[in-house]
């Protein structure tokens, strides 16, 4: 059902005509809103580059009159801070988790979306139910469990769970995505004798770049930013993550906002860059057009 060329031309003209006014509006709305949403970053940068005396005497919103790197120096040279080591620990946890979560949640979600097996729908209710109990009351029992497994003071509690299903949120999200993929696409392959593993890896995963990238970014930034996990499970000062290492300034009396913000910049900017670079995958959708 290839449309006639003239149809496309007409379509294109109509779209262009609509957009002229619409685009300016969209642009304006986006601009105003993004400025609002940029304010935490602005505040963070402005405060991180101010000297403590300037911070004490000026409004938090003012841009630093004298840029100083002193705060970053203080933060990075603190005796309890080992930036390279903590950065490596953080990266290890975040990358391992991302790999584990994306892989395992996609597998599980695929089964719930595409395969018929006994008890599937009720098992899915159990998947969702694991999100419904507040983590506060399972925290201590979980800690005791990890201690029995001798996992305390290792990276295991922070990485292994990621490989075991990747969490209900991600499973649910990917299941919804997979269920929206037209069935014709993989049924043909199954009829041709392809195994489900092949359908999963060769058809489903490549079609779902956007959803997988979303899960990946959520997981990576979540693990990168995680505070409670590393704080609870790691004792050794050499195993700290950046977020835990930088927390040392939050507990200060007469709080050192200059240092807290410098620390925030250090952990936030890599994430922003990652998101900015990675966001092109969010829009890699099913670009199939009709008429094959």
């Amino acid at each position, binding site marked *: 059902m290839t*449309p006639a060329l003239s*149809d496309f031309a007409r*379509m294109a003209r109509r779209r262009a005509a609509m957009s002229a006014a619409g685009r300016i509006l*969209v*642009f304006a709305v*986006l601009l105003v809103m*993004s400025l609002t*949403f940029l304010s*935490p970053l602005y505040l963070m940068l402005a405060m991180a580059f101010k000297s403590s005396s300037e911070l*004490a005497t000026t409004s938090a919103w003012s841009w630093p009159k004298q840029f100083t790197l002193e705060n970053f120096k203080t933060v990075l040279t*603190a005796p*309890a801070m080992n930036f390279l080591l903590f950065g490596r620990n953080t990266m290890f946890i975040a990358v391992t988790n991302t790999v584990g979560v994306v892989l*395992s949640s996609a597998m599980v979600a*695929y*089964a719930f979306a595409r395969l018929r*097996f*006994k008890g*599937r729908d009720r098992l899915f209710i*159990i998947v*969702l139910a694991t*999100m419904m109990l*507040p983590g*506060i*009351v*399972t925290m*201590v*029992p979980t*800690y*005791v*469990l990890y201690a029995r497994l001798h996992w*305390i003071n290792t990276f295991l509690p922070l990485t*292994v769970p990621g*490989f*075991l*299903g990747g969490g209900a949120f991600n*499973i649910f999200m990917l299941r919804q*995505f997979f*269920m*929206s*993929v037209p069935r014709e696409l993989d049924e043909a392959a199954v009829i041709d004798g392809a195994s*489900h593993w092949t359908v999963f890896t060769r058809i489903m995963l490549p079609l779902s770049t*956007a959803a997988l990238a979303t899960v990946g970014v959520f997981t990576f930034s979540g693990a990168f930013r995680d*505070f409670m996990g590393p*704080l609870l499970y790691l004792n050794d*000062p050499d195993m700290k993550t950046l977020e835990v290492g930088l927390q*040392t300034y*939050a507990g*200060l009396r*007469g709080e050192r*906002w200059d240092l807290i913000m410098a620390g*925030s910049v250090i952990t*936030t900017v890599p*994430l*922003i860059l990652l*998101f*900015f670079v990675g966001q092109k995958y969010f829009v890699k*959708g099913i*670009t199939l*057009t*009709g008429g094959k």
Partner: protein
Amino acid sequence: MKRALLFIAALLGLLTASSPARAEVTLRFVIWDGDEYVRAQEPAIRDFEKAHPGVKVKLESVTNNYMTRLLAQYAAGVAPDVVMMDPFSFHKFARRGALLPLNDFMANTPGFDIKQYYPSLVDAMSADGKHYVLPKDIAPQGIIFYNKKLFDEAGIPYPDGTWTWDFQERPELKEKDFLWVMHQLTKKDDRGRTTQYGYAVGWTNLFVETVAFSLGARYVDDYKEPHKTFYDDPRFIRAFDFLLELTKEKKWVPGETELNTVLQTGALKLFTEGKVAMYQTGAWEIVPMRRDIRPGAPGFFEWDVTLAPAYKNGQLVTPTGGSGYAIMAGTKHPKEAWALASWMGGEPGMSVMAEKGLSQPARMDMSRRAPWVPDANTPPEQRYPANRAVTDIAAQHVLFPPTHDFYPQVQDRAFAENEKIVNGSKTPAEVLGEGNRLAQARLNLLWSQEKSSPPFDWVKGWLFGGLLAVGLVAWVYWPERKKKLTQAMKKENRMGYLFITPWLIGIVGLTLGPMLLSLMMSFASWDIVTDAKWRGPGNFIEMVTADPRFFPALKVTAVYTAVAVPIGLTASFLLALLLNVDVKGIPLYRTCFYLPTLASGVANALVWKKIFQADGGLLNTIIYGPHGDGNFLGLAAMLRGVAGANGQVNWIGNEKTALASLILMSLWGAGGGTVVLLAGLQGIPKMLYEAATLDGAGPWARTKAVTLPMMSPYLLFSLVTGMIGTLQAFTEAFVMTGGGPGDSTRFYMLHLYTEAFEGLRMGYSSALAWVLFFVILAVTALQFWLSKRFVYYEGDIKK
């Protein structure tokens, strides 16, 4: 898949194989101090290691969630050796045998004498005649920092601490009357606004306590074993009235609104800026003061410290802080642990802290000499404040808060509504009367539960848990047990289970056990530290009959969810549609909208505090204009009913607007939902749009016929997970409001958290959690049931 499994196996191997080399004895030493304190202590710890060959110390600085972490470690049997403790926290450990008594160590250590330490501090850290904590610092709050320049300008001699005060000014006493000095040092402009305050106090209760304690009022009957509460003592009420008079009528003292600058302890900032002549706070603010009032820097002034005044004819009694080191009972190296504790809580440890001005030594002799009190050899940067000797006098006139481990919960009830006094919506007498009633009720409840109840029967508990697990499996499998499967279907069935294997391992191995345990605990009373006791349905009965916060918390959470979720979902969806168009720079916009989700929590919280601030906050500046006389969109007129004392709205400090403010704030996180929906939008095959366009559908018709149905699975996802998340909302209130004012933002989870970790009532909070679980389950089921009609799955399995 095999490769994935191999990878996991390799990873496991890699991580477990590397075990660090050990010195003879390694001590885990945990403190809640951060940065500057760690810097100061490191050298003392290294010296300790040199003096004790074969002993290695691993310092863990835990500035956040200190007690939670310690409790979890204690429960799991992996507690550290030496830990920092304060008089208000050690009791819950000590009472349950989790700390080693230090008496024998003290007696057997030559040269050690506990009598050298401040007696009040030693007493506050002992129970039943046993010492559990070796004090390391004391922080009396009966000291006043003053700006010498402002005294000079007013022609008043510098205070020497021999002054008093009354509720009325006594000009005849001149500089010996604190109120007169305060009055003289206050300056106002021609519109009656204060430009320079005579006196400021670190926090409201410090003022109230300084006044009422010196008049002889006390919070409870027995500070070690409280049974009766006296929060509504007329002397506390009088002290509050006095504060209101000074802040709101006379305006000699900045009130909460004026101090609400968010960035720093407000009063500290006013003092360092030279806008406050006298500032009462603890010695821990010396370091930030030295940093911000630097000799040679612009705005520098001479400053010093003096003793706070006692009330007329009264005794000087002020609140205090203090901390020390305790040894966990589970330590394998008690001797070395004591060596470390007495090193850090003795001369070597305390003098490094004193040298940097970080904390006043707990030993009286050390509090009276260098390095704490400056002498001729003190380096210039550590000379301020010169008169540090007064901290020793102040330390002899202190009153520690009650140390019983019930007390934090009791005080929490008593002070919960104090904001209403400050914002003027209720009188001190009303608030303190009600606070005292609630506090006493709480105390009675806690004592009544102390009565012996049978131990929790773990065999029966796990048997029940096992049965439940079996029941769950049966529930999953039973309906389809007789289903006949063809060969192909059998294969698919097997594949299905193979694909979900990782999740099955996770739920059976890691998730189910803790969940079942918390379910069991919901029928028990459990404080983490000691063994659980059987309570039957007692927790659930308490919820509906004896917990005045249960229903309000449910209501607040329901309102928050009902409003925030639909608005948030709509915002996310519109944003996603907006970001899905092809405009220049769209990657930049996408990043912008996601930013609040990426930016650190403190930065976000700060932004919102700056927006909601009563005085000069962004929202008020928009509504009232920079001069406070604007009326943006008529909002100022509409908001007249909720405006505070300054004629503007104190957004998060006002009961009527606090929850709405948090809802507004939740929209900030819409970017996270947008990313999910954006991914969904990308999943819509373009051919559907092309086909619709060919059929003559306009943009609206295309949205209705293609976008909405195709997006329905993601909208359902966002709705369900949004609801689950919002019903468990916690951080927003925890960071921004702490549940107040009143109970107006006390989310269910906040209540649960407070019960769990501040009240150490894990059993009760588990019961709360399971009630929430079933509420969420019901809400989710309803959503799925309703969704059947609206949600369209392109790739649904045809039945």
